[in-house]
């Protein structure tokens, strides 16, 4: 599974989350001294996108509610445009659902106009205030008591898993290398190059990009800095059965408070309904467990937001950790002397901002003296397998099944995943390391039965594929 660690690279990207993979893809699209930039991604876990990037609310944010003037506001808005266009090109499922931000109290109602001005200050012109009856027309199943809202038609839902995989796939297609199951334990910048020490050996590199998410501050300290501390903020989420999907066609947002964006209800690109997240500081950077308190809190919100939601079963419960820091903005910087770019504190908007962060990284490296130029000729863009409900899936595609009957052999019934798709994922450029990785590539076993009917067969297929 793990590629052999190269001895030499132009750039080592530490961290294969959505940000690191976006950066690797972008850098691998550049050349230096007339040859393609040699990029190596080092990821501690067994798969790309297996950290925070796999467990979020999967919204492609317009950035309407960001703090104007911050780097985050700028990169979210830019990332929204870039990723939206890229998704259409490579086949990442996106649904342009729009959002409606709902006021439930007089105070919240009074706060809406300032949110509208904030959106405008962020360059987002499509938001508008709506009366309560328009809120209920958009979401008839909404609980009683909504007083008014702010419509944000640009907010969209996206598949977070395909996004990271598309970046990784294209990065590899452009010649980048990915080393998994390998942790960076020290970084030693010298006068001309840097030694990166990992659990699998050493790499000499000219530049280092820190995209280590929750581990970003630790890596930063290895280079002698002391700029920020990550305090993981856990967000628990509940995913409800697809039978609930007709209840809600738009993202329903609360009025944000000082404590965060609050609990939302949203359709997912897989056809479920999501409720969450919570926001709770946890000491342990690996603690993605769920809790009874989190469940109770979310169900309480769900009961008020969308009462009928509680009549259907929960299909999945999970938690993600935001890489929150003491700073109110991303912590992004370049150190020309160390030939080192820090992409730190990418907390709750990094999926959306990923491609803009990658673009920004190129800018920073150029500023620091790297003579990067876009490669004149690139391999054709990737074409990702569609796992979204809004687009044709293989089991629905008569032509595809006629060409290859494996796409007619459904093995995960709840999610309609075919043997052909599982075969493709196992043979793909970034094969899954485990069942969870297979689930992120195909949706296998993520449905309402969670493997009652298919778990045994899919586990066997995974093992046969690895053998």
């Amino acid at each position: 599974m793990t590629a052999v660690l190269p001895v030499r690279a132009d750039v080592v990207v530490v961290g294969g989350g959505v940000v690191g993979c976006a950066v690797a893809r972008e850098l691998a699209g550049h050349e230096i001294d007339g040859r393609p930039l040699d990029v190596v991604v080092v990821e501690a876990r067994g798969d790309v996108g297996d950290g925070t990037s796999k467990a979020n609310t999967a919204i492609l944010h317009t950035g309407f509610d960001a703090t104007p003037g911050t780097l985050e506001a700028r990169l979210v808005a830019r990332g929204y445009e870039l990723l939206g266009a890229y998704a259409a090109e490579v086949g990442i499922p996106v649904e342009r659902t729009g959002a409606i931000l709902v006021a439930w109290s007089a105070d919240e109602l009074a706060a809406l106009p300032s949110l509208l001005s904030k959106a405008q200050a962020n360059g987002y012109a499509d938001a508008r205030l709506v009366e309560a009856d328009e809120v209920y027309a958009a979401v008839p199943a909404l609980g009683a008591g909504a007083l008014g809202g702010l419509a944000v038609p640009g907010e969209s839902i996206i598949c977070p898993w395909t996004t990271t995989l598309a970046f990784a796939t294209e990065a590899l297609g452009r010649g980048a290398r990915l080393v998994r199951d390998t942790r960076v334990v020290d970084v030693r910048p010298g006068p001309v190059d840097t030694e990166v020490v990992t659990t699998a050996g050493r790499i000499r590199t000219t530049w280092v990009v820190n995209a280590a998410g929750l581990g970003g501050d630790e890596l930063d300290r290895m280079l002698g800095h002391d700029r920020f501390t990550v305090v993981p903020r856990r967000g628990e989420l509940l995913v409800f059965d697809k039978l609930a999907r007709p209840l809600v066609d738009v993202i329903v947002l609360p009025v944000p408070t000082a404590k965060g964006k609050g609990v939302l209800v949203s359709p997912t690109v897989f056809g479920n309904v999501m409720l969450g997240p919570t926001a709770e500081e946890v000491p342990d950077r690996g603690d993605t467990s769920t809790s009874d308190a989190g469940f109770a809190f979310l169900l309480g919100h769900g009961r008020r937001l969308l009462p009928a939601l509680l009549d259907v079963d929960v299909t999945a419960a999970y938690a993600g950790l935001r890489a929150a820091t003491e700073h109110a903005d991303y912590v992004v910087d370049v150190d020309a002397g160390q030939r080192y770019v820090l992409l730190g504190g990418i907390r709750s908007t990094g999926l959306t901002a990923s491609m803009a962060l990658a673009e920004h990284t190129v800018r920073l490296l150029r500023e620091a003296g790297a003579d990067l130029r876009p490669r004149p000729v690139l391999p054709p863009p990737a074409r990702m397998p569609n796992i979204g409900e809004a687009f044709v899936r293989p089991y629905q595609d008569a032509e595809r099944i006629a060409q290859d009957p494996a796409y007619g052999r459904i093995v995960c019934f709840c999610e309609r995943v075919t043997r052909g798709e599982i075969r493709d994922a196992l043979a793909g450029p970034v094969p899954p390391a485990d069942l969870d990785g297979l689930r992120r590539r195909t949706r296998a076993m993520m449905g309402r039965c969670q493997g009652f009917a298919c778990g045994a067969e899919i586990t066997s297929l995974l093992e046969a594929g690895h053998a």
Partner: protein
Amino acid sequence: MPEPRIDACDVLVVGGGPAGLSAAVALRSAGVERVVVAEREVVAGGVPRHCAHPGFGLRDRRRAWSGPTYARRLVEDALSAGVDLRTGTMVTDWAARDEDAGGGAPGLAVPDAWVTSPLGRARVVPRAVVLATGARERPRAARMIAGDRPDGVYTTGQLQAMVHLHGRAVGSRAVVVGSAPVAWSAVLTLREAGCRAVAMVTDGPAADIPAPAAVAAQAALGVPVVRRSHVVRIVGRQRVRAVEVRHLDTGAVATIDCDTVVLTADWTPESELSARLGLEVADGFAGPRVDAALRTSRPGVFAVGNLLHPVDTADVAALDGRHVARAVAGWLSDERDRPVATRVRPGWPFAWVAPGLLAAGAGVSANGRLLAWPTQRVRTPRVRVEQDGVVVAERTLRWPTAPGRAYRMPWSLLDACDPAGGDIVVGLRE
């Protein structure tokens, strides 16, 4: 570009388990020509395929076969009866017929079905549909068990398929959650896989009224039973390391080390297709409401098996299948709507009763039984039937109710009820 095939038939049976296969055979015996069974698994037979223990076929075949033998016999019978049995074929959606869009009764025609198989995508156009999609156990998330999310947490269905169909190993120390009969099957399956059941955790009462599976597990295999308790948390990031168990009365939390967790029972019907048709839903579970002739709220759509009573035994599901043939054949010959009917609803201590509808002229139910799901154990139950608030029947039955097992009552309890009257409530006298 290949267009989806169009496939006409008389009856489309969705699901080739005991109920669906028995229905198909009975339909052929009743002279129905083109009976298609769509079964999504490569091998038909339903859940019994992976139940290795004996005892299948008692009521419908007067045999005590193992599950796999029973499943095989059902398949053989279907094939020799001339049933068009299509395995590896899943009904994924319904398609509205063109006439639905026009006048008449929108959405009330017999629906067409989209099916996918390695042979292609096809639109099946039946004159009647029998839903026989069965039931399953709720998985961890639906039970809202918190904690880490490691591998090693299974339902009994998955456990049985892993061990009996795929010859896979499971861990070495398992905690079994639940004490219904299926929990006992789980213990046996674990033993066969060389995995020790280190505890059976049940919310059932303290020692005075033992749950049958718990007694069996404790007595025969020495499995310690932890009563009045819930598994509230799973511990272990890659693989299960332990579960936390909370006592319902004292609130005390204990930790049990294990590498495998088997979640048993907590049944729910496989009701996606019936829900997507908008069929009227039963009280107490998500399956369709039917009358004694197994007709749903949509003309020409019938339902059988554990979709209607999650769960009773396989032979009872098979008897439903036989029973439905008459009503389906009747529908094919005169396409008459379901007559006037009134709901049959659960009273204490039942979570559901089935069939949940009393219709004029629907006759006696399958096997003459009214099924119910008891939430409590009652030693000498006195059944009380009320309609419009008036007691219309009372009878003491000689067999006790046991939580986790369907309770079978005579359909004749409803003899004095009026299909043109109000709701009927069937419960026990407290």
